[in-house]
């Protein structure tokens, strides 16, 4: 799960890394009050789960309280790449002498952790990687061996950082690696890591993605509460369904992530637009199926529903009973097309047979079911 900048800084601060004092606020008045407590000048920074804040006008320097008021009212409600700004981080402004870049993430090919360090921070690192790849010093860290101070020293040297801050940087890199591993982060990134005119190394931005699977070791609830979700995704999340909202009109329900993705693909292939990706997982019992149908049913854009089930361990007749029971419990607004295959599919189809109508149809293959669902969605739209 992606953290806001201010949450990332709090996360870093808990590993004893140097961050600026600041306050998270949601209103202009609170922004002003925070700036008064911190003392101007401050930075007024939009908190959104996307990059490009600066270019979009979401990060402003405020020399005095009037400027805080002006910037806070301009930035709150701003649309940054489709993300509406609801939170601001008001932070004591820092003077900057140098800007660096540093991050840790998993290199899936090498199956080791990858650290990247560059003297060219404060700009988009993708651009640096493209135009001047030698400016990024990379280090691969074996998770068993961990990262040592000696390795960090070599790494700092390779990145051509200001030699005056080598010791401070080494210390920070070790803390950042500790935060990355002990904190169960998928990604930690500081851009920029700055050196102040007084020669202090300081964290000026924070991008942190935590591993939701590590919830048994950490309290992730405060971060979970601020994840961006559309209403449909929130409803599905509450039912423990794997759901991703899309823009189209064909509701998709499938068992297994791969099959659900494949179903979305096939709907697109035959000229339709899927409304969602929904994976009900392995055991498709009536409760799960009813929950999934409710989520799809509450999406006003859905014009038809494609249920694509491949029975492995799950048996066809259980799936069929699930669908029948779910239809009795939920008043479904759109026609349903089912493709049921795999274990005991014949028994399942036989159970569904008496319930078939122009509201519940069955198709022999994935492709034909997709074609039928797409035709129904298009018919309803015209």
């Amino acid at each position, binding site marked *: 799960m992606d953290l806001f900048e201010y949450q990332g800084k709090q996360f870093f601060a808990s590993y004893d890394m140097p961050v600026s004092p600041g306050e998270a606020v949601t209103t202009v008045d609170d922004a002003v009050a925070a700036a008064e407590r911190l003392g101007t000048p401050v930075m007024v920074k939009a908190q959104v789960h996307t990059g490009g804040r600066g270019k979009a006008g979401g990060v402003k320097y405020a020399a005095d309280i009037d400027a805080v008021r002006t910037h806070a009212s301009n930035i709150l409600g701003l649309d940054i790449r489709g993300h509406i700004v609801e939170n601001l981080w008001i932070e004591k402004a820092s003077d900057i002498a140098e800007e660096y870049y540093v991050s840790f993430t*998993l290199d899936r090919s090498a199956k080791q952790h990858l650290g990247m360090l560059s003297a060219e921070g404060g700009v988009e690192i993708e651009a640096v990687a493209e135009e001047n790849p030698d400016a990024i010093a990379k280090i691969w860290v074996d998770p*068993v061996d961990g990262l040592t101070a000696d390795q960090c020293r070599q790494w700092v040297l390779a990145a051509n950082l200001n030699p005056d801050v080598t010791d401070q940087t080494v210390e920070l890199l070790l803390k950042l690696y500790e935060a990355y591993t002990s904190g169960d982060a998928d990604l930690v990134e500081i851009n920029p890591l700055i050196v102040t005119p007084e020669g202090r190394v300081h964290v000026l931005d924070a991008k942190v993605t935590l591993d939701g699977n590590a919830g048994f070791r950490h309290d992730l609830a405060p971060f979970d509460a601020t994840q961006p979700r559309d209403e449909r995704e929130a409803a599905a999340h509450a039912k423990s369904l794997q759901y991703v909202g899309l823009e189209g009109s064909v509701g998709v329900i499938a068992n*297994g*992530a*791969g*099959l659900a*993705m494949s179903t979305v693909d096939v709907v697109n292939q035959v000229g339709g637009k899927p409304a969602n990706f929904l994976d009900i997982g392995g055991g498709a019992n009536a409760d799960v199926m009813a929950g999934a149908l409710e989520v799809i049913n509450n999406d006003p854009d859905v014009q038809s529903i494609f249920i694509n089930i491949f029975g492995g*361990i799950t048996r066809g007749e259980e799936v069929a009973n699930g669908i029948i029971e779910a239809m009795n419990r939920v008043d479904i607004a759109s026609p349903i097309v089912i493709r049921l295959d795999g274990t005991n599919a014949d028994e399942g189809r036989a159970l569904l047979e008496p319930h078939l109508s122009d509201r519940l149809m069955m198709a022999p293959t994935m492709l034909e079911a997709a074609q039928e669902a797409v035709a129904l969605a298009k018919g309803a739209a015209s």
Partner: protein
Amino acid sequence: MSIFIDENTKVVYQGLTGSQGRYYGMLNRDYGTQVVAGTNPKKAGTDVEGVPIFATVADAVESTGANVSCVFIPAAGVRSAVLEAAEGGVELIVVITEGVPMHDEAFFYNKLKADYPGVRLLGPNCPGLISPGKANIGITAGHIAKEGGPVGIVSRSGTLTYQALYELKQKDIGCTTCVGIGGDPVPGTSFIDCLTAFEEDPETEAVMMIGEIGGSAEEEAAEFIAANVSKPVVAYVAGLTAPPGKKMGHAGAIVSGGKGTAQAKMDALAAAGVRIGQSPSEAGDIMAEVVAAL
């Protein structure tokens, strides 16, 4: 022949006393797999439907000759379970459990590589593997697979693995071994490991490969196939129309920064001479053509 497991494989289930472990362990036994032991430090000396429970994998290996472990332990315990299995002396560790933290996976993958180089890890978050007619370890429904050959299957996705087995069985095509490598960020066994084993297996004459978006495993496999695989390979890649930046269920299935797209993977595989199906059933049709021409 088959790869990794056969009729002589003896399996210990870590978590056999839990509901999932018991359910699938017994299904695997019904299939004909030699289910020889379970482990649970608190229930050593008891049994699950006749299968003896030991305190540790080492005890189970010593008493029963188990050479494979199948892990059904909840995610929080997987790291120590895997290390215990490696320490205990099995050759293959199959981790079915999903939701294992990335840092745990990265740790035990590298720990095994360094200290137990002879031990193969499969998963986590995988359906397991089946050598039809010989052994079935994990959660694949055995009866959807036809035994024999000539096709070997390797897949990153659970349900699409079943789909592939089923498509082939419908066409009366047998499978030597079907390996579900799982979709997690640090899979213990890769496409390349399986392709290597299938290339060496005389009974496997063609390989079906099922990939999905995210990461670069398919691209690496493509490079490997071009250089090292003489047998025909047919592939399907799920997630052609997945929107960038969205997680699609699996931890691994995410497209970011234009990398790891299904199209890029299909292009890489096609350039390596792999025939690509646009849907699972099309991949099945192509495989039928390939098998007919063998």
